[in-house]
Protein backbone atom coordinates (compact mmCIF):
# COMPACT_ATOMS: atom_id res chain seq x y z
CA UNK A 1 0.00 0.00 0.00
CA UNK A 2 1.14 3.44 -0.86
CA UNK A 3 2.98 5.33 1.88
CA UNK A 4 0.69 8.24 1.29
CA UNK A 5 -2.23 6.25 2.62
CA UNK A 6 -0.39 5.18 5.73
CA UNK A 7 0.03 8.70 7.07
CA UNK A 8 -2.21 9.95 9.82
CA UNK A 9 -3.86 13.31 9.29
CA UNK A 10 -1.44 14.92 11.72
CA UNK A 11 1.49 13.50 9.73
CA UNK A 12 -0.10 14.54 6.45
CA UNK A 13 -0.54 18.12 7.61
CA UNK A 14 3.14 18.21 8.46
CA UNK A 15 4.20 16.74 5.12
CA UNK A 16 1.91 19.04 3.19
CA UNK A 17 3.10 22.12 5.05
CA UNK A 18 6.66 21.19 4.39
CA UNK A 19 5.80 20.60 0.73
CA UNK A 20 7.08 17.01 0.97
CA UNK A 21 3.88 15.94 -0.70
CA UNK A 22 1.14 17.81 -2.52
CA UNK A 23 -2.57 17.79 -1.76
CA UNK A 24 -3.27 16.59 -5.28
CA UNK A 25 -0.98 13.59 -4.81
CA UNK A 26 -2.57 12.73 -1.51
CA UNK A 27 -6.09 13.08 -2.82
CA UNK A 28 -5.31 11.03 -5.90
CA UNK A 29 -4.00 8.24 -3.70
CA UNK A 30 -7.30 8.25 -1.82
CA UNK A 31 -9.30 8.36 -5.02
CA UNK A 32 -7.47 5.21 -6.13
CA UNK A 33 -8.15 3.59 -2.78
CA UNK A 34 -11.86 4.36 -3.16
CA UNK A 35 -11.74 2.40 -6.37
CA UNK A 36 -9.84 -0.58 -5.02
CA UNK A 37 -12.07 -0.86 -1.95
CA UNK A 38 -15.32 -0.31 -3.78
CA UNK A 39 -16.54 -3.77 -2.77
CA UNK A 40 -16.89 -2.43 0.75
CA UNK A 41 -19.71 -0.26 -0.59
CA UNK A 42 -18.69 2.70 1.56
CA UNK A 43 -19.22 5.54 -0.91
CA UNK A 44 -22.74 6.05 -2.17
CA UNK A 45 -21.88 9.24 -4.04
CA UNK A 46 -18.17 9.70 -4.81
CA UNK A 47 -17.25 13.33 -5.63
CA UNK A 48 -14.02 12.79 -7.55
CA UNK A 49 -14.00 15.99 -9.60
CA UNK A 50 -14.87 18.11 -6.60
CA UNK A 51 -12.12 16.40 -4.59
CA UNK A 52 -9.54 17.10 -7.28
CA UNK A 53 -10.56 20.75 -7.45
CA UNK A 54 -10.47 21.15 -3.69
CA UNK A 55 -7.03 19.49 -3.58
CA UNK A 56 -5.74 21.97 -6.13
CA UNK A 57 -7.12 24.81 -4.03
CA UNK A 58 -5.38 23.40 -0.98
CA UNK A 59 -2.06 23.31 -2.79
CA UNK A 60 -2.52 26.94 -3.79
CA UNK A 61 -3.26 27.78 -0.17
CA UNK A 62 -0.14 26.05 1.05
CA UNK A 63 1.88 27.92 -1.53
CA UNK A 64 0.38 31.21 -0.43
CA UNK A 65 0.88 30.39 3.23
CA UNK A 66 -2.84 30.64 3.90
CA UNK A 67 -3.64 26.98 4.43
CA UNK A 68 -6.27 26.19 7.05
CA UNK A 69 -5.84 23.51 9.73
CA UNK A 70 -7.35 20.76 7.55
CA UNK A 71 -5.98 21.90 4.21
CA UNK A 72 -5.56 19.09 1.72
CA UNK A 73 -6.89 16.34 4.00
CA UNK A 74 -9.18 13.89 2.15
CA UNK A 75 -12.41 13.48 4.09
CA UNK A 76 -15.57 11.42 3.60
CA UNK A 77 -19.01 12.67 4.67
CA UNK A 78 -21.93 10.56 5.94
CA UNK A 79 -24.84 10.96 3.54
CA UNK A 80 -26.86 12.58 6.30
CA UNK A 81 -25.09 15.93 5.95
CA UNK A 82 -26.59 18.21 3.31
CA UNK A 83 -23.86 19.05 0.85
CA UNK A 84 -24.50 21.83 -1.62
CA UNK A 85 -25.12 20.67 -5.17
CA UNK A 86 -24.16 17.11 -4.28
CA UNK A 87 -26.84 14.46 -3.91
CA UNK A 88 -27.87 13.86 -0.29
CA UNK A 89 -30.12 10.91 0.35
CA UNK A 90 -29.88 9.89 4.05
CA UNK A 91 -29.53 6.50 2.30
CA UNK A 92 -33.27 6.49 1.79
CA UNK A 93 -35.39 5.93 -1.28
CA UNK A 94 -37.49 8.93 -0.41
CA UNK A 95 -34.55 11.30 -0.90
CA UNK A 96 -32.77 9.61 -3.77
CA UNK A 97 -31.96 12.37 -6.24
CA UNK A 98 -32.37 15.19 -3.74
CA UNK A 99 -29.75 17.86 -4.29
CA UNK A 100 -29.52 20.46 -1.53
CA UNK A 101 -28.90 24.07 -2.49
CA UNK A 102 -27.20 24.56 0.86
CA UNK A 103 -24.31 23.12 2.89
CA UNK A 104 -24.51 21.95 6.51
CA UNK A 105 -22.70 24.15 9.01
CA UNK A 106 -20.33 21.39 10.15
CA UNK A 107 -19.18 20.40 6.66
CA UNK A 108 -19.02 24.06 5.68
CA UNK A 109 -16.56 24.62 8.50
CA UNK A 110 -14.52 21.62 7.39
CA UNK A 111 -14.26 22.91 3.82
CA UNK A 112 -13.43 26.38 5.09
CA UNK A 113 -10.58 24.81 7.04
CA UNK A 114 -9.27 23.38 3.78
CA UNK A 115 -10.63 19.83 3.90
CA UNK A 116 -11.12 17.90 0.64
CA UNK A 117 -14.45 16.11 0.06
CA UNK A 118 -14.02 12.60 -1.31
CA UNK A 119 -17.70 11.74 -1.38
CA UNK A 120 -20.85 10.83 0.55
CA UNK A 121 -20.70 7.78 2.74
CA UNK A 122 -23.10 4.92 3.31
CA UNK A 123 -25.22 4.77 6.47
CA UNK A 124 -28.39 3.24 7.85
CA UNK A 125 -31.50 4.86 6.40
CA UNK A 126 -32.16 8.14 8.23
CA UNK A 127 -29.46 7.04 10.70
CA UNK A 128 -31.78 4.38 12.07
CA UNK A 129 -29.83 1.21 12.66
CA UNK A 130 -26.73 -0.33 14.18
CA UNK A 131 -25.36 -2.26 11.25
CA UNK A 132 -25.71 -0.09 8.13
CA UNK A 133 -28.04 -2.78 6.78
CA UNK A 134 -31.09 -0.59 6.33
CA UNK A 135 -29.48 1.56 3.63
CA UNK A 136 -31.09 1.51 0.17
CA UNK A 137 -27.60 1.23 -1.24
CA UNK A 138 -26.96 -2.05 0.51
CA UNK A 139 -24.77 -2.54 3.56
CA UNK A 140 -21.39 -0.95 4.16
CA UNK A 141 -18.95 -3.80 4.66
CA UNK A 142 -16.36 -3.96 7.41
CA UNK A 143 -12.80 -4.20 6.02
CA UNK A 144 -12.15 -6.67 8.86
CA UNK A 145 -13.59 -10.01 7.93
CA UNK A 146 -14.35 -13.09 9.98
CA UNK A 147 -11.82 -15.89 10.06
CA UNK A 148 -14.03 -17.93 7.76
CA UNK A 149 -14.21 -15.00 5.37
CA UNK A 150 -17.83 -14.10 6.15
CA UNK A 151 -18.62 -10.46 5.50
CA UNK A 152 -19.06 -8.43 8.65
CA UNK A 153 -21.14 -5.41 9.44
CA UNK A 154 -19.24 -2.16 9.78
CA UNK A 155 -21.71 -1.19 12.49
CA UNK A 156 -24.21 1.62 12.23
CA UNK A 157 -25.61 3.94 11.57
CA UNK A 158 -22.34 5.54 10.33
CA UNK A 159 -21.03 2.28 8.85
CA UNK A 160 -19.58 3.79 5.71
CA UNK A 161 -17.80 6.49 7.69
CA UNK A 162 -16.08 3.98 9.98
CA UNK A 163 -15.29 1.44 7.29
CA UNK A 164 -13.70 3.94 4.90
CA UNK A 165 -11.27 5.21 7.53
CA UNK A 166 -10.37 1.65 8.54
CA UNK A 167 -9.93 0.57 4.94
CA UNK A 168 -7.81 3.54 4.03
CA UNK A 169 -10.25 5.02 1.49
CA UNK A 170 -10.72 8.14 3.61
CA UNK A 171 -8.14 9.79 5.84
CA UNK A 172 -10.90 11.00 8.14
CA UNK A 173 -14.67 11.04 7.95
CA UNK A 174 -17.66 12.63 9.63
CA UNK A 175 -20.72 10.88 10.92
CA UNK A 176 -23.50 11.42 13.44
CA UNK A 177 -24.28 9.74 16.74
CA UNK A 178 -27.79 9.57 18.16
CA UNK A 179 -27.58 6.34 20.21
CA UNK A 180 -24.06 5.20 19.42
CA UNK A 181 -23.89 5.62 15.65
CA UNK A 182 -20.30 6.87 15.72
CA UNK A 183 -18.87 4.99 18.65
CA UNK A 184 -20.23 1.54 17.84
CA UNK A 185 -19.08 1.45 14.18
CA UNK A 186 -15.74 2.90 15.30
CA UNK A 187 -15.35 -0.03 17.70
CA UNK A 188 -16.40 -2.57 15.04
CA UNK A 189 -13.93 -1.17 12.50
CA UNK A 190 -11.04 -0.47 14.85
CA UNK A 191 -10.93 3.32 14.46
CA UNK A 192 -11.39 6.29 16.78
CA UNK A 193 -14.91 7.68 16.92
CA UNK A 194 -15.97 10.75 18.92
CA UNK A 195 -19.46 11.83 19.91
CA UNK A 196 -19.10 15.39 21.21
CA UNK A 197 -21.20 16.99 23.95
CA UNK A 198 -24.71 17.75 22.72
CA UNK A 199 -24.62 21.31 21.41
CA UNK A 200 -20.90 21.33 20.54
CA UNK A 201 -21.43 20.92 16.83
CA UNK A 202 -24.23 22.59 14.91
CA UNK A 203 -27.11 20.42 13.69
CA UNK A 204 -28.05 22.87 10.96
CA UNK A 205 -28.12 21.12 7.62
CA UNK A 206 -27.95 17.61 9.05
CA UNK A 207 -30.96 15.47 8.23
CA UNK A 208 -32.64 15.27 11.61
CA UNK A 209 -33.36 11.90 13.21
CA UNK A 210 -33.85 12.62 16.93
CA UNK A 211 -33.28 16.30 17.59
CA UNK A 212 -32.44 16.12 21.29
CA UNK A 213 -29.94 13.30 20.75
CA UNK A 214 -28.25 13.82 17.33
CA UNK A 215 -24.69 15.06 17.28
CA UNK A 216 -22.06 15.21 14.51
CA UNK A 217 -18.61 13.80 15.15
CA UNK A 218 -15.41 12.56 13.47
CA UNK A 219 -13.92 9.16 12.62
CA UNK A 220 -10.13 9.05 12.54
CA UNK A 221 -7.26 6.61 12.86
CA UNK A 222 -5.78 8.30 15.90
CA UNK A 223 -6.86 10.34 18.87
CA UNK A 224 -4.61 13.16 17.71
CA UNK A 225 -6.39 13.26 14.36
CA UNK A 226 -9.71 13.33 16.17
CA UNK A 227 -8.72 16.43 18.13
CA UNK A 228 -7.51 18.08 14.92
CA UNK A 229 -10.73 17.73 12.95
CA UNK A 230 -13.01 18.17 15.96
CA UNK A 231 -11.55 21.60 16.65
CA UNK A 232 -12.66 22.63 13.13
CA UNK A 233 -16.13 21.07 13.38
CA UNK A 234 -17.19 22.47 16.72
CA UNK A 235 -18.51 25.93 17.49
CA UNK A 236 -21.65 27.93 18.20
CA UNK A 237 -24.10 28.38 15.33
CA UNK A 238 -26.81 31.02 15.69
CA UNK A 239 -28.94 29.10 13.17
CA UNK A 240 -29.26 26.23 15.67
CA UNK A 241 -31.09 27.16 18.86
CA UNK A 242 -29.68 24.12 20.66
CA UNK A 243 -26.10 25.07 19.81
CA UNK A 244 -24.00 25.83 22.88
CA UNK A 245 -22.25 29.17 23.20
CA UNK A 246 -18.99 27.75 24.44
CA UNK A 247 -15.54 28.49 23.12
CA UNK A 248 -13.59 25.88 21.17
CA UNK A 249 -10.09 25.44 22.53
CA UNK A 250 -7.36 23.91 20.41
CA UNK A 251 -7.95 20.33 21.42
CA UNK A 252 -4.73 19.14 19.83
CA UNK A 253 -2.91 20.76 22.72
CA UNK A 254 -4.39 18.41 25.29
CA UNK A 255 -4.05 15.14 23.48
CA UNK A 256 -0.84 14.06 25.10
CA UNK A 257 -1.42 15.41 28.58
CA UNK A 258 -0.73 12.99 31.32
CA UNK A 259 -3.53 11.11 33.02
CA UNK A 260 -1.57 10.97 36.22
CA UNK A 261 -3.83 11.73 39.15
CA UNK A 262 -6.99 11.55 37.04
CA UNK A 263 -9.84 9.61 38.56
CA UNK A 264 -11.39 7.05 36.22
CA UNK A 265 -14.78 5.59 37.12
CA UNK A 266 -15.78 2.00 36.38
CA UNK A 267 -19.58 1.66 36.53
CA UNK A 268 -20.69 -1.65 38.02
CA UNK A 269 -23.96 -1.60 36.08
CA UNK A 270 -22.08 -1.93 32.76
CA UNK A 271 -21.22 -5.53 33.70
CA UNK A 272 -24.02 -7.13 31.75
CA UNK A 273 -25.24 -10.69 32.24
CA UNK A 274 -23.89 -12.91 29.53
CA UNK A 275 -21.40 -10.31 28.34
CA UNK A 276 -18.78 -11.62 25.94
CA UNK A 277 -15.63 -12.75 27.78
CA UNK A 278 -13.54 -10.83 25.29
CA UNK A 279 -15.30 -7.63 26.18
CA UNK A 280 -14.74 -8.20 29.89
CA UNK A 281 -11.09 -8.91 29.18
CA UNK A 282 -10.46 -5.77 27.14
CA UNK A 283 -12.25 -3.67 29.73
CA UNK A 284 -9.99 -5.03 32.47
CA UNK A 285 -7.03 -4.42 30.21
CA UNK A 286 -8.01 -0.79 29.74
CA UNK A 287 -8.39 -0.32 33.44
CA UNK A 288 -4.96 -1.72 34.14
CA UNK A 289 -3.36 0.42 31.38
CA UNK A 290 -4.76 3.54 32.96
CA UNK A 291 -3.59 2.51 36.37
CA UNK A 292 -0.14 2.02 34.95
CA UNK A 293 -0.30 5.49 33.46
CA UNK A 294 -0.91 6.91 36.93
CA UNK A 295 -4.69 7.24 37.02
CA UNK A 296 -6.77 6.23 40.03
CA UNK A 297 -9.53 3.73 39.34
CA UNK A 298 -12.78 4.30 41.22
CA UNK A 299 -15.79 2.01 41.31
CA UNK A 300 -18.91 4.05 40.62
CA UNK A 301 -22.58 3.42 40.24
CA UNK A 302 -24.89 4.61 37.47
CA UNK A 303 -28.04 3.04 38.88
CA UNK A 304 -30.41 3.72 35.98
CA UNK A 305 -28.18 2.28 33.26
CA UNK A 306 -30.45 -0.62 32.39
CA UNK A 307 -33.32 1.70 31.62
CA UNK A 308 -31.36 3.72 29.11
CA UNK A 309 -32.18 1.53 26.12
CA UNK A 310 -35.96 1.40 26.57
CA UNK A 311 -35.89 5.10 27.41
CA UNK A 312 -34.01 5.81 24.20
CA UNK A 313 -36.33 3.64 22.15
CA UNK A 314 -39.26 5.81 23.12
CA UNK A 315 -37.67 9.24 22.84
CA UNK A 316 -35.74 8.71 19.62
CA UNK A 317 -38.62 7.21 17.61
CA UNK A 318 -41.04 9.82 19.01
CA UNK A 319 -38.87 12.70 17.83
CA UNK A 320 -38.14 10.89 14.58
CA UNK A 321 -41.82 10.33 13.84
CA UNK A 322 -42.25 14.09 13.90
CA UNK A 323 -38.97 14.97 12.15
CA UNK A 324 -39.79 12.65 9.26
CA UNK A 325 -43.25 14.09 8.69
CA UNK A 326 -41.76 16.59 6.24
CA UNK A 327 -40.90 13.76 3.83
CA UNK A 328 -44.25 13.89 2.13
CA UNK A 329 -43.44 14.22 -1.56
CA UNK A 330 -44.72 17.79 -1.79
CA UNK A 331 -41.63 20.00 -1.90
CA UNK A 332 -38.82 17.51 -2.55
CA UNK A 333 -38.17 13.79 -2.56
CA UNK A 334 -39.68 11.02 -4.62
CA UNK A 335 -43.42 11.20 -4.93
CA UNK A 336 -45.85 8.40 -5.69
CA UNK A 337 -48.83 9.99 -7.43
CA UNK A 338 -52.38 9.36 -6.30
CA UNK A 339 -55.88 10.76 -6.64
CA UNK A 340 -56.08 12.46 -3.27
CA UNK A 341 -53.53 14.22 -1.11
CA UNK A 342 -53.73 11.69 1.73
CA UNK A 343 -53.37 8.77 -0.65
CA UNK A 344 -50.34 10.49 -2.13
CA UNK A 345 -48.80 10.89 1.30
CA UNK A 346 -49.45 7.28 2.27
CA UNK A 347 -48.16 5.80 -0.94
CA UNK A 348 -45.14 8.10 -1.13
CA UNK A 349 -44.03 7.37 2.41
CA UNK A 350 -44.73 3.66 2.22
CA UNK A 351 -42.66 3.39 -0.94
CA UNK A 352 -39.92 5.77 0.18
CA UNK A 353 -39.24 4.59 3.74
CA UNK A 354 -37.68 1.21 4.54
CA UNK A 355 -38.96 -1.24 7.12
CA UNK A 356 -36.93 -0.09 10.11
CA UNK A 357 -37.78 3.55 9.48
CA UNK A 358 -41.46 2.70 9.20
CA UNK A 359 -41.28 0.66 12.36
CA UNK A 360 -39.74 3.52 14.32
CA UNK A 361 -42.17 6.06 12.94
CA UNK A 362 -45.02 3.85 14.12
CA UNK A 363 -43.53 3.33 17.58
CA UNK A 364 -42.88 7.03 17.89
CA UNK A 365 -46.38 7.95 16.74
CA UNK A 366 -47.81 5.46 19.22
CA UNK A 367 -45.72 6.76 22.13
CA UNK A 368 -46.98 10.30 21.51
CA UNK A 369 -50.57 9.41 20.80
CA UNK A 370 -53.53 10.30 22.96
CA UNK A 371 -53.75 8.04 25.95
CA UNK A 372 -50.16 6.86 25.70
CA UNK A 373 -48.20 10.09 26.01
CA UNK A 374 -47.98 10.00 29.80
CA UNK A 375 -47.16 6.33 30.06
CA UNK A 376 -44.52 6.35 27.36
CA UNK A 377 -43.10 9.68 26.31
CA UNK A 378 -43.47 11.57 29.57
CA UNK A 379 -42.22 8.59 31.56
CA UNK A 380 -39.19 8.26 29.29
CA UNK A 381 -38.36 11.95 29.80
CA UNK A 382 -38.48 11.46 33.54
CA UNK A 383 -36.19 8.44 33.36
CA UNK A 384 -33.92 10.48 31.12
CA UNK A 385 -33.52 13.05 33.87
CA UNK A 386 -32.59 10.31 36.31
CA UNK A 387 -29.97 8.96 33.91
CA UNK A 388 -28.51 12.43 33.51
CA UNK A 389 -28.47 12.89 37.27
CA UNK A 390 -26.54 9.61 37.61
CA UNK A 391 -23.79 11.06 35.40
CA UNK A 392 -23.84 14.48 37.08
CA UNK A 393 -23.22 12.77 40.43
CA UNK A 394 -20.55 10.51 39.02
CA UNK A 395 -18.62 13.40 37.50
CA UNK A 396 -18.48 15.08 40.90
CA UNK A 397 -16.37 12.13 41.87
CA UNK A 398 -14.42 11.13 38.73
CA UNK A 399 -12.92 12.85 35.68
CA UNK A 400 -13.84 10.21 33.14
CA UNK A 401 -15.66 6.91 32.95
CA UNK A 402 -14.28 3.78 31.25
CA UNK A 403 -16.65 1.21 29.72
CA UNK A 404 -16.68 -1.17 26.78
CA UNK A 405 -18.13 0.39 23.63
CA UNK A 406 -20.09 -2.61 22.41
CA UNK A 407 -21.32 -5.90 23.88
CA UNK A 408 -19.68 -7.86 21.06
CA UNK A 409 -17.22 -7.47 18.23
CA UNK A 410 -18.52 -6.94 14.68
CA UNK A 411 -21.19 -9.47 13.72
CA UNK A 412 -21.94 -11.04 10.39
CA UNK A 413 -24.11 -9.21 7.94
CA UNK A 414 -27.63 -10.55 8.17
CA UNK A 415 -27.09 -12.06 11.62
CA UNK A 416 -29.23 -9.66 13.63
CA UNK A 417 -31.42 -7.87 11.14
CA UNK A 418 -34.47 -10.08 11.63
CA UNK A 419 -35.10 -9.18 15.26
CA UNK A 420 -35.29 -5.49 16.06
CA UNK A 421 -34.70 -5.87 19.78
CA UNK A 422 -31.54 -7.95 19.29
CA UNK A 423 -30.30 -5.14 17.06
CA UNK A 424 -31.26 -2.47 19.58
CA UNK A 425 -29.20 -4.21 22.29
CA UNK A 426 -26.04 -3.28 20.37
CA UNK A 427 -26.44 0.24 21.71
CA UNK A 428 -26.54 -0.75 25.36
CA UNK A 429 -23.28 0.97 26.35
CA UNK A 430 -23.54 3.94 24.06
CA UNK A 431 -27.10 5.16 24.47
CA UNK A 432 -26.77 6.57 28.01
CA UNK A 433 -24.32 9.25 26.83
CA UNK A 434 -26.79 10.54 24.22
CA UNK A 435 -29.59 10.70 26.77
CA UNK A 436 -27.40 12.65 29.16
CA UNK A 437 -25.86 14.83 26.42
CA UNK A 438 -22.33 14.02 27.54
CA UNK A 439 -19.35 13.43 25.22
CA UNK A 440 -17.99 9.95 24.54
CA UNK A 441 -15.14 8.49 22.52
CA UNK A 442 -14.39 4.98 21.35
CA UNK A 443 -10.74 4.04 20.96
CA UNK A 444 -9.50 0.72 19.52
CA UNK A 445 -7.98 -1.28 22.34
CA UNK A 446 -7.10 -4.65 20.87
CA UNK A 447 -8.21 -7.66 18.90
CA UNK A 448 -10.53 -10.44 19.91
CA UNK A 449 -9.51 -14.07 19.69
CA UNK A 450 -11.23 -14.08 16.31
CA UNK A 451 -8.95 -11.25 15.27
CA UNK A 452 -11.62 -8.57 15.30
CA UNK A 453 -11.25 -5.06 16.78
CA UNK A 454 -12.47 -4.34 20.26
CA UNK A 455 -13.11 -0.78 21.37
CA UNK A 456 -13.14 0.92 24.74
CA UNK A 457 -15.37 3.85 25.50
CA UNK A 458 -14.58 6.89 27.62
CA UNK A 459 -17.22 9.28 28.84
CA UNK A 460 -16.73 12.71 30.36
CA UNK A 461 -18.74 15.60 31.79
CA UNK A 462 -20.34 18.09 29.38
CA UNK A 463 -17.79 20.09 27.37
CA UNK A 464 -14.87 18.09 28.81
CA UNK A 465 -13.74 16.50 25.55
CA UNK A 466 -10.25 17.49 26.66
CA UNK A 467 -10.41 14.74 29.28
CA UNK A 468 -11.58 12.27 26.66
CA UNK A 469 -8.62 13.07 24.45
CA UNK A 470 -6.09 12.68 27.29
CA UNK A 471 -7.40 9.39 28.55
CA UNK A 472 -8.10 7.93 25.10
CA UNK A 473 -4.59 8.90 24.10
CA UNK A 474 -3.19 7.04 27.08
CA UNK A 475 -5.07 3.91 26.03
CA UNK A 476 -4.02 4.35 22.43
CA UNK A 477 -0.38 4.57 23.44
CA UNK A 478 -0.62 1.34 25.41
CA UNK A 479 -2.79 -0.53 22.93
CA UNK A 480 -0.55 0.09 19.91
CA UNK A 481 -3.46 -0.94 17.70
CA UNK A 482 -2.73 -1.50 14.02
CA UNK A 483 -5.10 -1.11 11.10
CA UNK A 484 -2.94 -3.28 8.86
CA UNK A 485 -5.20 -6.36 8.84
CA UNK A 486 -8.17 -4.19 7.89
CA UNK A 487 -6.29 -2.67 5.03
CA UNK A 488 -5.25 -6.08 3.89
CA UNK A 489 -8.86 -7.17 3.95
CA UNK A 490 -9.75 -4.05 1.99
CA UNK A 491 -7.31 -5.21 -0.64
CA UNK A 492 -5.25 -2.07 -0.97
CA UNK A 493 -2.01 -2.44 -2.85
Amino acid at each position, binding site marked *: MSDLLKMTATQAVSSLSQKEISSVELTNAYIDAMETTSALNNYVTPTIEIAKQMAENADKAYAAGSAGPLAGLPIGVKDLFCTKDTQTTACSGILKGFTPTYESTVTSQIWQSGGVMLGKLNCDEFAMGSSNETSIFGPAVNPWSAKDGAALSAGGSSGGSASSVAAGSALMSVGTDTGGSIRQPAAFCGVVGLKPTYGRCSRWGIVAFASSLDQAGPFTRTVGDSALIFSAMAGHDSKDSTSASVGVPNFSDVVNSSVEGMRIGIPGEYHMDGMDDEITRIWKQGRSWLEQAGATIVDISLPHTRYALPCYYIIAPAEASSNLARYDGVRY*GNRVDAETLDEMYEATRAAGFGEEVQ*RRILIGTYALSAGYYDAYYLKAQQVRRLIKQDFDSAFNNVDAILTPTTPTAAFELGAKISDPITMYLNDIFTVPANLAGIPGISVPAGLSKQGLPLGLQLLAA*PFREDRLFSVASAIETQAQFSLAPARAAGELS
Partner: protein
Amino acid sequence: MAVDKHAVKKIARLARLQISEEKSELLSADLGNILNWIEQLEEVDTTGIEPLASVNEHSLPWREDLVTDGEINDQVLKNAPETAGEFFVVPKVVE
Protein backbone atom coordinates in the same frame (compact mmCIF):
# COMPACT_ATOMS: atom_id res chain seq x y z
CA MET B 1 -48.98 -4.55 25.78
CA ALA B 2 -50.41 -6.07 22.66
CA VAL B 3 -50.95 -3.88 19.67
CA ASP B 4 -53.76 -5.25 17.58
CA LYS B 5 -54.06 -4.85 13.84
CA HIS B 6 -56.74 -2.24 14.26
CA ALA B 7 -54.48 -0.09 16.41
CA VAL B 8 -51.64 -0.52 13.91
CA LYS B 9 -53.89 0.71 11.12
CA LYS B 10 -54.93 3.72 13.18
CA ILE B 11 -51.35 4.64 13.99
CA ALA B 12 -50.33 4.10 10.37
CA ARG B 13 -53.09 6.46 9.32
CA LEU B 14 -51.89 9.14 11.74
CA ALA B 15 -48.39 8.72 10.32
CA ARG B 16 -49.66 8.65 6.72
CA LEU B 17 -48.04 5.31 6.03
CA GLN B 18 -49.85 2.87 3.81
CA ILE B 19 -49.61 -0.56 5.41
CA SER B 20 -50.79 -3.73 3.68
CA GLU B 21 -52.97 -6.25 5.50
CA GLU B 22 -50.08 -8.68 5.65
CA LYS B 23 -47.67 -6.08 6.93
CA SER B 24 -50.02 -4.90 9.61
CA GLU B 25 -50.03 -8.41 11.05
CA LEU B 26 -46.23 -8.51 11.15
CA LEU B 27 -46.04 -5.04 12.57
CA SER B 28 -48.61 -5.88 15.16
CA ALA B 29 -46.27 -8.56 16.49
CA ASP B 30 -43.14 -6.43 16.14
CA LEU B 31 -44.59 -3.40 17.82
CA GLY B 32 -46.09 -5.54 20.55
CA ASN B 33 -42.69 -7.00 21.34
CA ILE B 34 -40.96 -3.67 21.33
CA LEU B 35 -43.58 -2.05 23.51
CA ASN B 36 -43.42 -4.93 25.97
CA TRP B 37 -39.69 -4.49 26.20
CA ILE B 38 -40.09 -0.73 26.68
CA GLU B 39 -42.52 -1.27 29.51
CA GLN B 40 -39.64 -2.05 31.88
CA LEU B 41 -39.67 1.68 32.48
CA GLU B 42 -42.72 1.22 34.65
CA GLU B 43 -40.38 -0.26 37.28
CA VAL B 44 -38.68 3.10 37.76
CA ASP B 45 -40.01 5.30 40.52
CA THR B 46 -40.34 8.70 38.90
CA THR B 47 -42.47 10.40 41.56
CA GLY B 48 -41.68 14.07 41.66
CA ILE B 49 -39.20 13.89 38.79
CA GLU B 50 -39.48 16.66 36.19
CA PRO B 51 -39.36 15.39 32.62
CA LEU B 52 -36.15 16.33 30.81
CA ALA B 53 -37.02 17.78 27.43
CA SER B 54 -33.54 19.08 26.71
CA VAL B 55 -30.03 18.50 28.02
CA ASN B 56 -29.18 22.10 27.19
CA GLU B 57 -28.60 24.31 30.16
CA HIS B 58 -28.94 27.58 28.29
CA SER B 59 -32.07 29.62 27.52
CA LEU B 60 -33.78 29.92 24.17
CA PRO B 61 -31.71 32.41 22.15
CA TRP B 62 -33.66 35.19 20.36
CA ARG B 63 -32.91 36.63 16.94
CA GLU B 64 -33.38 40.25 15.88
CA ASP B 65 -36.41 41.13 13.79
CA LEU B 66 -34.57 41.59 10.51
CA VAL B 67 -35.44 40.17 7.11
CA THR B 68 -32.35 38.15 6.31
CA ASP B 69 -33.83 35.39 4.21
CA GLY B 70 -36.30 34.52 1.49
CA GLU B 71 -36.37 35.61 -2.16
CA ILE B 72 -34.86 32.23 -3.07
CA ASN B 73 -37.93 30.82 -4.80
CA ASP B 74 -35.81 29.04 -7.40
CA GLN B 75 -33.95 27.15 -4.68
CA VAL B 76 -37.14 26.43 -2.79
CA LEU B 77 -38.87 24.99 -5.87
CA LYS B 78 -35.79 23.29 -7.32
CA ASN B 79 -36.35 19.79 -5.90
CA ALA B 80 -40.14 19.78 -6.13
CA PRO B 81 -41.70 16.76 -7.85
CA GLU B 82 -44.39 18.96 -9.40
CA THR B 83 -44.74 22.70 -9.82
CA ALA B 84 -46.96 25.10 -11.76
CA GLY B 85 -45.35 28.48 -12.26
CA GLU B 86 -44.15 29.39 -8.81
CA PHE B 87 -46.53 27.09 -6.94
CA PHE B 88 -46.05 23.62 -5.50
CA VAL B 89 -48.65 21.24 -6.89
CA VAL B 90 -50.47 18.44 -5.08
CA PRO B 91 -53.57 16.36 -5.78
CA LYS B 92 -56.63 18.50 -5.17
CA VAL B 93 -57.94 18.72 -1.64
CA VAL B 94 -61.66 18.98 -1.17
CA GLU B 95 -62.78 20.59 2.03
